């Protein structure tokens, strides 16, 4: 939560407001890496956040001496963050420091760290207290609230009643409003609602590189919309991002193009905070392989705020990241990890391809999405020009379904005999198979290219599969528990027809750097043709 608090504070700063964030942590949190990522960024960017560390010497049940090395104060000081020290037994100093630290953060626009020594009088949760009884007893007697209760019992009771009354009123109000909430009020099925009509059109020829189109989307939208923020590693001009998406954006929008340390977890959290505050952060994760470092923030926070806070807040964070191989980048920079994202509830996952203009996709995300979206770009597609699929006697069409494009390539007249569903970097490779599949194997393919891969819009896939009776899903990741499994299962649930289905996916092994071997490991033209052709060969 600390990076989220930092994000909210950053939003306040960017909006020239004087709000600051207060993040309360325990000494147990000092074991989390994201805290240090955030302190580093907060100090570097002068984010007005006050981190209050309640140091009670125990992390759940474990004594601090078993968990903590060095000095807590030095941990903050090494980031050049001012530290205030107090404890809960000397109240005057505590109150003074609280006031002073808040003023410091607000007037200087800088982070501060307030270390408050204290002691927990009760168990961490319920009956899990194994601490020394005499130690607890000693602190119990010393505790200022207990001391106050013993010396001024009447006043104590009066104040306690007031506080209880106030809390009861709040709880009652909320209960009245929301206790009877129904499941259909709580859960909006993203696949439900009005089904949009499929209007198939032949798209225009664009002939511009995909990376330039993504760049031009940001250039245009950042001019129009001051809430759009571009965040990522190495994104400043002249370098302009590892894949040159941000190019010179930082020159025109120095306040809203934020280059970050190598701290994927913290920058995801900070983006969460910005999104909660009404900004539209577009976070670039340099390689899709690093998305795992963001997952805690996405899985445990981004996707939950809306429901956790009773639909009164939205967190429209957008993560963009390139996945895929074929550039010889080896095992740690070539993976297709979309399957990890597809299993997250309450998220949309979009995958760009080289047949579809990415600008309307991003525009739709900006205009329509109120909850988290992850966009997978494919590094092999960046340099490709967005083109039509030119396959002789096949028709290339595009329809917008629930705001996102689906591409369809089908025989002009003939009834197709095989449905091939694909997305992302595999799209152009599959298109490249169509003519051979027909000439060599008699297969009249109907190819459906998705851009929104979670949730998938199934109508068109089912319509086509019911016609052909054959469904193939081609993916660049490995097959186990991937999108192929999901699509095939979902289609089978929704049709009464007998369907022959196959997944075509990569070998489940780390992607090798050896170019020739990499080509063998990743789903490629040859094995697509072999598998589909093999099914149809009598």
């Amino acid at each position, binding site marked *: 939560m600390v990076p989220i608090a930092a994000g909210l504070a950053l939003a306040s700063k960017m909006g020239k407001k004087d709000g600051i964030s207060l993040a309360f942590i325990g000494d147990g949190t000092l074991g989390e890496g994201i805290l240090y990522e955030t302190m580093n960024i907060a100090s570097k960017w002068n984010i007005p956040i006050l981190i209050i560390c309640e140091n009670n010497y125990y992390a759940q049940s474990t004594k601090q001496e078993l968990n903590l090395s060095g000095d807590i104060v030095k941990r903050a000081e090494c980031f050049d963050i001012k530290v205030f020290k107090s404890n809960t037994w000397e109240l005057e100093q505590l109150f003074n420091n609280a006031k002073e630290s808040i003023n410091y953060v607000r007037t200087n626009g800088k982070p501060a760290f307030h270390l408050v020594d204290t002691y927990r009088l009760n168990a961490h949760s319920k009956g899990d207290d194994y601490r020394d009884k005499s130690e607890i007893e000693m602190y119990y007697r010393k505790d200022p609230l207990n001391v106050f209760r013993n010396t001024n019992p009447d006043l104590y009771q009066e104040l306690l009643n007031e506080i209880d009354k106030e809390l009861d009123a709040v709880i009652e109000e909320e209960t009245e409003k929301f206790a009877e909430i129904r499941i259909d009020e709580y859960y909006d099925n993203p696949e439900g609602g009005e089904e949009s009509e499929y209007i198939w059109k032949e798209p225009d020829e664009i002939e511009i590189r995909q990376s330039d189109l993504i760049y031009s989307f940001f250039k245009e939208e950042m001019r129009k919309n001051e809430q759009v923020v571009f965040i990522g590693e190495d994104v400043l001009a002249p370098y302009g991002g590892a894949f040159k998406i941000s190019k010179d954006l930082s020159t025109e929008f120095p306040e809203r193009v934020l280059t970050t340390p190598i701290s994927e977890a913290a920058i995801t959290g900070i983006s969460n905070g910005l999104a909660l505050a009404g900004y539209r952060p577009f976070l670039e994760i340099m390689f899709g392989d690093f998305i795992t470092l963001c997952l805690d923030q996405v899985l445990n926070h981004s996707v939950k705020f809306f429901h956790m806070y009773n639909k009164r807040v939205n967190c429209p964070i957008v993560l963009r990241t390139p996945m895929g191989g074929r550039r010889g980048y080896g095992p740690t920079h070539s993976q297709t990890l979309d399957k990890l994202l597809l299993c997250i509830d309450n998220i949309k996952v979009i995958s760009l391809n080289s047949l579809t203009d990415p600008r309307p996709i991003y525009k739709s995300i900006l205009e329509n999405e109120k909850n988290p979206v992850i966009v997978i770009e494919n590094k092999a597609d960046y340099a490709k020009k967005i083109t039509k699929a030119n396959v002789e*006697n096949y028709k290339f069409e595009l329809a917008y379904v629930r705001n996102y494009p689906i591409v369809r390539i089908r025989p002009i*007249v003939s009834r197709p005999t095989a449905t091939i569903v694909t997305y992302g970097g595999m799209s152009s490779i599959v298109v490249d198979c169509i003519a051979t599949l027909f*000439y*060599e194997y008699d*297969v009249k393919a109907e190819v459906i290219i998705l851009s929104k891969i979670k949730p998938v819009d199934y109508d068109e896939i089912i*319509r086509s599969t019911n016609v052909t009776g054959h469904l193939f899903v081609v993916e660049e990741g490995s097959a186990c528990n991937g999108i192929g499994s999901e699509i095939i299962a979902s289609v089978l649930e929704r049709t009464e027809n007998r369907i*022959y289905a196959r997944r075509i996916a990569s070998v489940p092994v780390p992607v090798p750097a050896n170019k020739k071997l990499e080509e063998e490991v990743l789903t490629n033209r040859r094995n697509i043709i072999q598998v589909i052709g093999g099914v149809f060969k009598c």
Partner: protein
Amino acid sequence: MLVLQEIFVPQESVNDEFVRISKLYFKSGDYVNSGQAILEFETSKVNVCIDSEFDGYIEFFCKEGDELRVGELICRIYDSMPCTDSKDNYHIKNDTENHDEIETIYSKAALELIESSKINKAVFQGRDLVNVDDVKNVIKNTGHVKEDRNLQKEQIFDNDEIEYKTLSNIKRSEINNFLDAGNVTSTVYLYLDVKESYSPDNTNNYLLSVVVLEVFKLLKKYPELNAFFSGDGIAYYKSIKIGMAIDAGYGLKVVKLPDLEGKTVSEVENEIFRAIKKYLRNKLSIDDITGSTFTISDMSNEGVAFFSPLVSSKQSAVLGISGFDEKLRRYTVSLTFDHRVTEGRKATMFLKELIESINCYF
């Protein structure tokens, strides 16, 4: 919604490029029964009537008076009512567009079949992609009509597969009497009783396998049931190839089983299983569905009380197995035969002998 049958304009004569649709007996959305006449068209010489091969809902892509090119789609028959909204039948909509400017692309195998069958490529004009199935369709559509008309004139000679015997004058005049009556087939029925312990639910294809195997053995004794009538004689097959009628949603197909000589029941069971699998995966080759010499139609799973299947072309008999009668604990087995080739007494003998040998298994 499955397409059961697609009807294209057949090539009726070498000279005709176009035909005129003279009569549609149904309108789109109507239910048609197998064997019913669907439409008529005129070529420069004759009127041709086309029948439905399936029960289903029809959709026309032309109207009366339309001039259609040879090879063009006339209608489709579906297993359920075709939807009229654009989402489900966008292809159909597009099919009616004019695609004459398209340069047809042929698959490698289609080209080979066109070459070997000596088909005029012009029949495919307006098509985008032509694969082997498209070529087979044309062969089927054009060949089918020709076969009916020319059957009587077809000259059959002895070859590796067939031994041909011309009929005596007496037999020939007898046949002419049948023909005048308009019917050449007849059916005999017998019951196959089974023991108390037998349950049709747990047998899979065991019963069918036994029947197939015993028919195979018995046909050696009854060569006239492994033959067909042609011209003025009977063609006897030299080998026995059992065809199994399957209809599980992808259209009725008679799948030829391999040579069963020396096979055990469980081996036959495997062959049947393999054939059904091939059917369900739509992987039947033209060889799989041609060349059978005797057909068995097993409707025992369909709860049919009794039925008599039609005799396939170039065969003289077909065996039908009806549904199991729980009360009377029996199946009805039928043999429909071509009266020009054999007669009721022989057919009954065959059926009796067959049932005796099947009884040994149960």
